[in-house]
């Protein structure tokens, strides 16, 4: 009983995010002219999963107490790589996908290596490497274009058995195959420990370097999965700095809404997924409620602020002011 209570307490942020998402999505569907049909769900799922993957990628560095400003650019870079390689014979497609994911992982590893061995601040490191990755994307795709295996892209952006959007299945697979095992591994728990109290983690024999390296590398890999998904959605690649920037900032917002502390140590990728879903549903609400175009950014901003504030609700329940400082 005490165990259950503890677990519920720990996942408060996630539960709140899920609740908010369910409420907002219900509001959206209730006002949608077509209602909850499979195509409507698929459209919503495709763009939500895209941001959810980038938000998961952001979660890992944040858990270790860092911040990754390059996730959006890795996302763009892998999109450009995928638009060049994921086409042709089936084996070429398969090799292409592997190279795309490795590119993402390598970019993440470089971030991690600079943070760990260069002892630089993550925010500055990834600001710089993000510019580098964008530069590589621009070299690969000076103008928008490229191609991707259309059969595979169709499969990934449509539905499984005409019911479940394939992109949701992909997201579930990423959670089950990558996130959950990582979270329960020694290295994964090390990430939480490092983010919680680096000194204490060090004294307890946690391998800090290895945990951070793993967090950044995995972050790059997840951004690579997102880049692949963007290629499937657009059938092409584009080195677009505005898109990279938008996804980076939205991923941070998604992480916060999902209940992960920017100070590190608490939260998780599941919360970030729902944080991303909430952000996307805010956009969708603009579709069903007819707001003037010039009011839309204001509306988005206000809703975002409210959503982020929910994460700070815990301060209402503290008994001792000192708890604020932890």
């Amino acid at each position, binding site marked *: 009983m005490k165990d259950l209570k503890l677990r519920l307490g720990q996942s408060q942020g996630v539960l709140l995010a899920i609740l908010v998402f369910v409420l907002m999505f219900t509001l959206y569907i209730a006002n*949608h*002219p*077509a209602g909850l*049909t499979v*195509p*409507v769900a698929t*459209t*919503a799922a*495709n*763009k939500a999963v*895209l941001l959810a993957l980038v938000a998961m990628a952001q979660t890992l560095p944040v858990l270790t107490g860092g911040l990754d400003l390059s996730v959006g650019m890795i996302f763009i870079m892998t999109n450009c790589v995928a638009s060049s390689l994921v086409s042709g*014979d*089936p084996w070429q*497609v*398969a090799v292409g996908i592997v190279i795309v994911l490795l590119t993402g992982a390598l970019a993440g590893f470089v971030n991690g290596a600079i943070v760990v061995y260069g002892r630089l601040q993550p925010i500055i490191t990834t600001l710089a490497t993000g510019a580098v990755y964008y530069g590589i994307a621009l070299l690969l795709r000076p*103008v*928008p*274009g*490229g191609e991707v*295996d*259309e*059969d*595979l*892209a*169709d*499969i*990934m*952006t*449509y*539905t*499984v*058995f*005409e019911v479940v959007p*394939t992109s949701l*299945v992909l997201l579930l*697979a990423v959670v089950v195959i990558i996130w959950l095992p990582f979270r329960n591994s020694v290295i994964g728990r090390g990430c939480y420990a490092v983010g919680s109290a680096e000194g204490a983690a060090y004294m307890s024999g946690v391998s800090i370097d290895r945990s951070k390296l793993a967090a950044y590398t995995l972050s790059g890999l997840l951004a690579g999965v997102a880049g692949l998904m*963007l290629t499937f*959605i*657009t*059938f*092409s690649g*584009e080195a*677009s700095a*505005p*898109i990279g920037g*938008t*996804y980076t900032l939205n991923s941070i917002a998604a992480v916060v809404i999902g209940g992960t502390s920017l100070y590190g140590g608490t939260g998780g990728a599941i919360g970030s997924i729902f944080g991303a879903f909430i952000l996307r549903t805010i*956009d*969708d609400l*603009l*579709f069903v409620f*007819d*707001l*003037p*175009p*010039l*009011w*839309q950014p204001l509306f988005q901003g206000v809703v975002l602020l409210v959503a982020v504030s929910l994460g700070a609700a815990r301060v209402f329940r503290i008994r001792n002011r000192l708890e604020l400082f932890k």
Partner: protein
Amino acid sequence: MVTKAMLGAGLAALLVAGAASSSFAAGPEVVSGPGHNPSCFAPFNADTKHFKFEAKEPPYRIALANGFVGNTWRIQMIKSLKAYAEQPDVKPLIKELKIVSTGTDVAAQIAAVDNFINSGYDAILTIAVNPTAFAPVIRRANRAGVVLVPFDNVLDSDKIIQVNEDQSEIGRINARWLLKHLGTSGKVLEVRGLPGNSVDRDRHLGFRELMEAGGNSFEIVEVVGNWDDGTAQKVTADAIAVHGKFDAIFVQGGSTGVVRAMMDAKHPFVPISGEAENGFRKLCAKHADEGLLCSSAGQSPGLVAIAAKTALTALQGKVLPQYVSVPIPLVEHPDFKANVNYFPDLTDNFFTPNEFPPCNVNIPATEIMAKTEADQ
């Protein structure tokens, strides 16, 4: 196909599910031209295909999936569409007009178009943020029998109807005006647009095509003005400082700034061909007697009205070219008339051309300014 399923064990099952839903796209019937009202819906060239959509009963539900919003051109475009939809001959055809702006995120714009398709809209107008990313949406629109009409920034596709002005022709029009006043030689300033953009490239090439034709010997000085008044003004001032006097000027955009630079430098007024900003036309009208002989042609936000008219015509089952080349709204000296094709009381940033006589489309400035930029 079989080997493709070997990609991964899980993918095999997905392929079966996906193959059923991703089957062939229906889309419009390809027919032979000429199309309906060819003086308005002019085919881009002799090779342009013609489309015929299945006729539907009016009134229709029309949507605009805009990307970026926040510059004057886009805001005037949105207002123009709403003003056009209110006109007496158009209003009965439209049951609902919905406008959504999604910003620069290509996935969000694709989702917006998908949302309109899912919601059963009859036609969707769009200015795509990326010319290559819409292939999957085009297939979904065609399969659902939705008329998707990209305009302004058109897509790399011949499977849907697109609407734009012929940018090379704008360049040629500009060149013809200067040639008319210069003869075969002289020193010309060319103020170009945003580097790397296809519109800049096409206007430049169209201009050069005529200027550098046999028998001509022009000295052309090229500067980059980014289609922006401030930038164009600065680079023109620099060019005048370095080169002294020009016999004529061609500017792609930011024309008001170019004329201001000329006046500031006490450069004598010379023939100029430029865009269609209200400020430019105001100055042209005022200083025509002193030698500022202008030709003004441009990419009008009113293009949206032609895109809407195209969509409405297609929905009625009429034959249309796949690529509609919209007549270029052109006014040349001495045809500048206050409150007809320029507006002394409106801002310099207002884009003047909003009438397309061959299409019987005319959206008076007063109607545009009366609309808010709000959604319906």
